[in-house]
């Protein structure tokens, strides 16, 4: 199971990297989303996948009676999902605004902050 999931993570990383290498913001955005999903599966796999009982403590007992699944990766993934979701929402708005205001989503042509023909600094006093 872990081997299969590792393969899935690897494929997702490859696709995400390919998308992030693009010049266009919208593809980069999709790449980042894929990357964060790949990370979630990675953490899930790192927590070891096994079919055991859910991590619930029965009433009256102080600890689980038998072997239970590891609840921590799920907590980590939930946190990561929340964060990546909010970042995706923010980046979507930002990319949209940038596209509207700058008229392009090609990062090569977004040179407002760093003008291309920036001359030399003053060389003599």
């Amino acid at each position, binding site marked *: 199971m872990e081997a299969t999931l590792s393969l899935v993570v690897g494929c997702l990383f490859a696709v995400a990297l390919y998308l992030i290498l693009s010049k266009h913001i919208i593809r980069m955005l999709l790449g980042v989303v894929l990357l964060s999903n790949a990370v979630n599966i990675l*953490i899930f796999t790192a927590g070891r996948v096994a079919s055991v009982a859910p991590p619930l403590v029965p009433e009256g007992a102080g600890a*689980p009676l038998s072997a239970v699944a590891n609840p921590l990766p799920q907590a980590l993934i939930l946190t990561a999902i929340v964060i990546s979701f909010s970042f995706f929402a*923010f980046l979507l708005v930002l990319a949209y605004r940038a596209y509207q205001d700058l008229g392009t989503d090609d990062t090569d042509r977004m040179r407002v902050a760093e003008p291309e023909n920036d001359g030399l600094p*003053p060389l003599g006093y």
Partner: protein
Amino acid sequence: MLKAEAMVHGAFSPADFLVIAPVAVCFLFGAVLLMARKRVEWHPFVAIPGFALVLGIDVALLLKVAADGPQTMMMGNWRPPFGIAFTVDMLGALFAATAGFVALCAAIYATFSMSRTERRYGFFPFLFLMMGGVSGAFLTGDIFNLYVWFEVLLIGSFGLLILGSEHEQLDGATKYSFLNLVATTLFLITTGYLYGLFGTLNMADIAQKAGRFENDGALLTIALLYLVAFGMKAAAFPLNFWLPASYHTPRFVVSALFAGLLTKVGVYALIRVLLMLFPPQHADLATLISWVAILTMLAGALGALAQSDLRRLLNYFVIAGIGTIFAGLAVTDPGSGAAPAVVAGAAQAAGTITAATGDAAAAAPLLAQHPGAMVVALSGAVFYALHSIVVMTALYLAGGTAARLSGSSSLFAMGGLWRQRPGLAALMLVFLLSVSGLPPFSGFWPKVILVRGAFQAGLPLLGAVILLTGFLMTVASARVFAFAFWRNPPERGAGTDGASFPPQKEPVPLLSMLPLLMLAVFVVIAGILPQWLVGLTDVAARGVVDPAAYVGSVFGGGS
């Protein structure tokens, strides 16, 4: 495995909550200001006391750590390896206190320099949110929690970066956001691997267990990935291009805080994770780090020389400073590649700290005796990082004031500020000398320590590049001062880029000089009386090299 006793027992006194207080106070103030978003004119009157309170808490925490050693509080009373730990040692406390100081100065500056409409977009709430994230990153003892604080401060910084939504800002923010998001995702990926290997995320627990995995390729991979992720956050050489693309676009105050704080959070995380948790891997990567440091310093210094715009020149100063800090991280103790014995962590009573090399060393000022080269260099790096936080913030604020006075931040268009505002010019001169590393200001001593550490560790090239960078930055600083302040104002229209926009001069109230003065006081005191600061950074460096006290604070039963 899982015992019923997963909870810590024992009462806490209110003083124990100092560990968590900076974060909680920041969020509380930020949220209240956000709720009162219509009453912008009240914001400074709430925000400045708020930041003063945060600074007070940070200083109290620093004093407590200096007196009693590292402090720990477990969230929700869960027992150490299970719950999230907030652990503060001298390193975290020093960074947090400096961050609080800088934030207070920036808040005062913003009060007097920002127009009402600029504040309407929510400057102060986002500032509190970002400071909450920064404080959390400095104070947490859990590596996943560190990731969460990185994201929190990133969200806050996004908000600050696009304040005003000008074209230039959207351009800069796009690059900044994507690069930083990829960096934190890389951080998360590595943390996933780390969790798979160790089964724990508590830094003290990892420090204890890392010794068992000696010479493991997986650990080296993790260490290298962390180096890439934090190097990207810190804008180290091959990954530094997002910084000059974005840091000059937001408001002056925002740039100042970003330049001062955000890259240093990356540096702090690198020190905490790479040097404290993986000392053998750090020793393996030391050569790589020293080349990164050399190239970062040169890229920063040469980049600064090539700029004609004051703000973009300052961007490269930030990068050069990062390179200098990295130089301190590149030094290892020759022959001590093996991890110091931290397994017997609980045996170390909190407060007594021994040097990594095994010499019994009380927390005495540096230069008095001969601790390991790594401790010397790390102490210098921490000192330089603190100096850099203060002086970069100060430079951006002073540069912003100068640009407002002359209506442009281009070196072609500025001039005559020495006659117009001699006080500002004098302060700017102090900051420029300090950032170049000239005595008697705060940049001098850490550079002395770093150069000394580099030569002591047998890295003469590194030491030479630190000195060369200092020289190049002096040239760039001299150019700034000569053009923007010393010469007579250029005639209108004579500048090459004066044709596109007429300079709009803005009045600058005298009170906005107060934060500059506060920052200058720190720069001068740290330059003239460095002993107290060196004593503290020395303790911080020893605590990183031998984290026994840190581990003892977490597992020694609560606080």
